[in-house]
């Protein structure tokens, strides 16, 4: 896990120095898109071939839904407080 963060930080530093090379950055963004396609494809294959996960897909989906509800409801209620306290008054 530290590897992931370290590699990304190295990328950030390199990216900062390359920030004016627009063409390279555009190619980089394309590569990201395709790397994501590839990795999610691989993820799909790994899951499809895994009988245990395939059987528990509905359960996993329900858990995912519960986490989504928690995350969304938690953040919009806090967003309401932030809005009332710090943003709303400025508008009028």
């Amino acid at each position, binding site marked *: *896990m*530290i*590897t*992931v*963060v370290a*590699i*990304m*930080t*190295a*990328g*950030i530093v*390199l*990216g900062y120095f*390359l*920030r004016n090379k627009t063409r390279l*950055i555009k190619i*980089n963004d394309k*590569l*990201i898109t395709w*790397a*994501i*396609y*590839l*990795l*999610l*494809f*691989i*993820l*799909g*294959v*790994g*899951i*499809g*071939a895994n009988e245990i*996960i*395939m059987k528990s897909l509905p*359960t*996993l*989906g329900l*858990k*995912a*839904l*519960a*986490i*989504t*509800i*928690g*995350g*969304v*409801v*938690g*953040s*919009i*209620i*806090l*967003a309401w407080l*932030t*809005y009332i306290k*710090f*943003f709303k008054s400025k508008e009028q």
Partner: protein
Amino acid sequence: MKGSLIILGFFTAGLLLGYNNLLPSFLIENDYSNYALYFLMFLVGISIGADTKAFQMLKNHNLKIFLVPLTTVVGTAIGISLIYLIIPGLSFKEVQAVGSGYGYYSLSSIIITETYSKSLGVVALLSNVMREISTLLLAPLMVVYLGKIAPICSGGATSMDTTLPIITKASGKDYAIISLFHGIVLTILVPFIVSLILSL
């Protein structure tokens, strides 16, 4: 939205091919995806480092703008902690890791799959896709009842791209910049927070 569909298409195609055993076994047995993840993280790093938009926005806005991503991070953590109490079979850490994708389902599910477990990766993928979809569907309603920041926080990392149009429409143009800034900050934070939680 179109981008999300393509991404899900690749995932589903993989799922079907894997399920029906249509791939040569060396593809399934040799797992190169770890290296692919490292490669992806390096590229993502480059794109973050090269993007100075967030800094420019900071120059033109006061620091209050940071309250919005902070609200999302804290609000999500609180909401998920409560939900954790009623979900069986997942540890506190696992639930928090999934929630810390903030809608950035591609990257968070990949990181979780590679560094933790496949089944939690699936939960992360589904949960974060649902976060994007519910924001797309409910943004106008959120603004009516909970104010103009609500759909931005609900959208999480997607508030800079896929959910930006609906947020701009629901909250107004003034909030487009805040939405963009919020999405950029969370997009940068996702890999760090998810890896951090999983390493605890």
